[in-house]
C-alpha cells in the first residue's frame, strides 16, 4: 500500500467505524470526542488499511476503462490466458491475507495527512494441507504524518495458495 497523500477525514473514519460495527462516539462525534482522553476524533486501530483508497495502483479497486476480474455479463470480466492460471484462476484463487501487525506510535487523528511507504519483506513457502503449496510474502508500510513523524508501522503477510482453501465442513451460508 503506497500513498503519497492519505488525508484522514472525519467522514471516512465514520464510515470505516460503521463498517466494523463500532459506534464509539470518539470516531464520529466531534463534541463527544473532545471530552475523551483522545481529545478529538481519532481513527479505529485498523483504519490505516483504508489507505488503499489513496493508492493509485491498488489492484483490488476497479479502475475506469480497465478490465475488472469480478462478474458482469460473465462470471469474470477477464478472459483467462490459455494454459494460464491454475489455483482459482482469474486472479481469484490466489491472494489471501494471512497476518497483519500494527505498531502505534501515536493515535491517527482526523485532520492528519499521512504518507504510506511500503517496503517488501521476506518471502517463504510452506506445504498446506487444505490448499496445496503456500507462498507467503511480507511487506512493511510506514505511515508518517505531515511532519515526517512515524505514526503507525504496519506489517502485512499475504499468502498465495495453489488452490482454493478446502472447507472443513459444508458451507453454512
Amino acid at each position: 500500500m503506497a500513498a503519497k497523500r492519505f488525508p484522514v477525514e472525519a467522514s471516512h473514519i465514520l464510515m470505516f467505524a460503521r463498517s466494523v460495527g463500532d459506534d464509539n462516539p470518539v470516531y464520529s462525534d466531534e463534541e463527544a470526542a473532545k471530552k475523551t482522553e483522545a481529545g478529538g476524533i481519532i481513527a479505529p486501530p485498523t483504519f490505516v488499511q483504508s489507505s488503499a483508497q489513496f493508492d493509485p495502483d491498488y489492484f483490488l479497486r476497479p479502475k475506469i476503462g480497465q478490465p475488472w476480474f469480478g462478474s458482469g455479463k460473465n462470471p469474470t470480466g477477464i478472459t483467462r490466458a490459455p494454459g494460464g492460471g491454475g489455483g482459482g484462476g482469474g486472479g481469484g484463487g490466489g491472494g489471501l491475507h494471512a497476518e497483519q501487525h500494527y505498531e502505534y506510535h501515536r493515535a491517527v487523528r482526523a485532520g492528519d495527512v499521512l504518507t504510506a511507504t511500503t517496503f517488501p519483506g521476506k518471502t517463504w513457502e510452506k506445504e498446506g494441507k487444505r490448499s496445496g503449496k503456500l507462498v507467503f510474502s511480507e511487506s512493511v508500510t510506514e505511515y508518517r504524518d505531515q511532519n515526517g513523524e512515524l505514526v503507525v508501522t504496519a506489517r502485512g503477510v499475504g499468502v498465495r495458495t495453489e488452490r482454493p482453501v478446502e472447507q472443513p465442513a459444508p458451507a453454512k451460508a
Partner: protein
Amino acid sequence: MPLKASDLKVGDVHTARLVEDLKRTQIVQYAGASGDYNPLHTDEIFTTQVAGYPSVFAHGMLTMGMTGKMLTDYVGDARLTKYGVRFTSQVWPGDTLDSTATVTEVGGGIAKFDVKTVNQNGVEVLSGYAEARVD
C-alpha cells in the same frame, strides 16, 4: 475508561460478541470503507464459479477491525501500542463471532494480551496479541 494496571492481573479475561449472523451487506460496507473491493468478498457469482469457494467470505481485516472494537472498548481510546493477528480460518456470511482478550503481562505502564476470535462452532478465526498503555 482507560484500564488501571492495579485492576489487572495475569489471566484476566475480557470477552465481547462482535457480530451475530454476519450479513453480506456489512461485508459490502467494509469493502466500500476500506477500499478493498476484492470480488471474493462481495461477488457471489465470481467467488463460487471462478474462484471455487462455497460463498463470498469476509475480509480478514473486517474480523480484525471488529476484534479491534473489543480491544478499544476494553483498554480505552488511543491506548493501543501494538495489535497483531493471524487469520486462521475464513469468516462466512451468517457467522456469529465472539472475541476474547486475556491478560498475559502487566508492568511498566503496559498491559499485554492474547487475543482470540472464534465463530459459532468454536473454530478460531483470528489469533493474535495486543499491548496497551495502562494507568
